[in-house]
């Protein structure tokens, strides 16, 4: 498989008046052609910051800082060393992004069609007529009803689902190799969410685009992701294939995430498993497991040292002291029937 993206030891900080917020603390991953990788975690765990760093979309002049030692390589090219011109070629053309909120991410003063044409003329050097034809083809590809008419619509004339389709059309217009989708369905209703998700997986199969899917909803991930990274406080706690994460999770945080969503088959009005407390303050230095304070299996060492990543298979890795040979063998509480 062809390797498209390599991220190694990514560290991102924001300088604020309160101090340095270390939003991403050493994240590494690789992405292959045609693969779907999902980042899962609660708000503030660094999912979006990681996604935006790949495109260098963070306000680097201002507060955000990608630390020395971080590596982001796209097809062997160092993204962190690129100048504005190089980045402009990268963004929208080779890697493109769709954002969470389709209501605010489109330009309200421009017709939808023009927003797609813009990218095509810039990146592909097409003439206006060619670009229009191509734009309408893309709008049809994302199954926007009445694509020809909608080409001349303003975003406010469209519904949320239709706007998200336009966003996807803009992102796909230049047939990028990686599509970064940052919570693409969070602002949408369930029925529309189902439409958009099936559209994304169809497009992936058709165009062989790699997708990075950022979401907090494990249900969304189940249908579409090949590999999943579970993130917490700027770190990856567990990474593995969809199978491994859903059927053989090893980290207590993954267990908690999986069981805090009530299944439809479960008995009702029972107490749901819930985590104590809230995620740690990212201003604080963390020299031990970030999840220790909320973990039911916390041991002395968890509060003292950072666990190393244990590889359970080629694809499955977990950072937890429970994997250490001296640690007690525990099973997730839901397998012991205590949930």
């Amino acid at each position, binding site marked *: 498989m062809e390797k498209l993206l390599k991220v190694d030891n990514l560290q991102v900080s924001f300088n604020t008046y309160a101090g340095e917020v270390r939003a991403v603390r050493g994240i590494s991953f690789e992405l292959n052609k045609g693969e779907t990788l999902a980042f899962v975690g*609660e*708000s503030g765990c660094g999912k979006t910051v990681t996604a935006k760093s790949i495109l260098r979309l963070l306000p680097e002049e201002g507060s955000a800082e990608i630390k020395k030692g971080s590596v982001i390589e796209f097809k062997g090219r160092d993204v962190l060393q690129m100048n504005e011109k190089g980045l402009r070629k990268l963004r929208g053309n080779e890697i493109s992004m769709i954002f969470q909120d389709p209501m605010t991410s489109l330009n309200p003063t421009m017709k939808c069609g023009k927003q797609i044409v813009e990218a095509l003329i810039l990146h592909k050097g097409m003439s206006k007529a060619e670009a229009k034809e191509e734009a309408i083809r893309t709008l049809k590809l994302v199954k926007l*009803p009445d694509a020809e008419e909608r080409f001349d619509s303003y975003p406010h004339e469209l*519904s*949320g*689902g*239709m706007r998200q389709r336009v966003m996807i059309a803009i992102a796909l217009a230049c047939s990028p190799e990686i599509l970064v989708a940052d919570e693409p369905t969070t602002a949408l*209703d*369930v*029925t*529309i*969410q*189902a*439409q958009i*998700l*099936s559209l994304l997986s169809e497009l992936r199969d058709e165009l062989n685009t790699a997708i990075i899917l950022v979401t*907090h*909803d*494990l*249900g*969304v*991930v*189940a*249908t579409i992701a090949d590999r999943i990274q579970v993130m917490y406080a700027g770190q990856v706690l567990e990474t593995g294939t*969809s*199978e491994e994460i*859903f059927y053989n999770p090893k980290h207590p945080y993954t267990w*908690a*995430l*999986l069981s*805090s*969503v*009530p*299944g*439809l088959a*479960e008995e*009702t*009005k029972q*107490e*749901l*498993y*819930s*985590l104590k407390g*809230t995620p740690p303050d990212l201003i604080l230095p963390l020299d031990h497991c970030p999840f220790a304070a909320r973990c039911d299996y916390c041991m002395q060492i968890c509060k003292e040292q950072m666990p190393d990543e244990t590889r359970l298979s080629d694809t499955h890795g977990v950072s937890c002291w429970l994997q250490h040979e001296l640690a007690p063998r525990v099973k997730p509480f839901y397998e012991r029937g205590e949930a």
Partner: protein
Amino acid sequence: MSKNKEVLVDVQNLSKYFKQGKKDLKAVDDVSFKIYQGETLGLVGESGCGKTTCGRTLLKFYNPTHGKVLYKDKDVSSKMSRSELLAFKRSAQMIFQDPYSALDPRMTIAEIVTEGMNVHFNYTKKEKQEKVVELLASVGLTDDYANRFAHELSGGQRQRVGIARALAVEPEFIVCDEPISALDVSIQAQIVNLLIKLQQEKDLTYLFISHDLSMVKHISDRVGVMYLGSFVEIASNKELFDNPRHPYTEALLSAIPIADPDHEMSRDKIELPGDVPSPVNPPSGCKFRTRCRYATDLCAREIPELLEIRPGHFCACHYRKD
């Protein structure tokens, strides 16, 4: 199950229209339902289907355009005397969706929680202090929080304060308007557990509004499904999820993403085409027909009635009457 219980809220042909230019936006259109003492009625539907308006009209935040709401057999939708109104507002409370904007940023938590008490009860200063500590403890906060401001709290903690504020006036009926949708998954579970615990302790009745069907299933005794301002189906929790009759409910249930890849792959999904039509200009006949797989001419001509197709199971569809 809930049949033999007392009816707490009886909604009769309730409508709430908002003026949109010369047209009416029919946010809630002729709905009738009952909420029984001590139960949780879940209310689900897509955004813009009138769930929130329905909840707010019940609590007299809005005056209904037509119809009435009987609360403990008393008509609360028409004009009430001041003392009656006060008694109703004490007894029926609301928990809001967004814990970030629902709390006054310039008041301390203690002030927020005691505001309602000052209106409804004559507590002494000492009694009030004791009450605040007790209320905060009941929602899982320590009394350290009493003198803090809302901005010092996390989303989950704020929602707890919102719940404490509602409980402060000792209500019997609480409308929970999307109380968890602004929170993270792990925090959602905490709040839902808290709501269930409080219901059992204080014998509360909830109207639980949410678009998250799996949470609604978890907390509710009965569930109502709304589409474009009308109820399409109401049934007991088990009945609705095991045996949905209305095509819209079927599609909604099948659209819930489930955190289980194999199950997801194997199940049949019903994908609804298109979007919800505008409530200013709803389709004729059955409002759902524009997205329904089974729609026929009859659906365009006649509005289906909400019929009891089985004991306690109501469904509004021409073709699902048995």
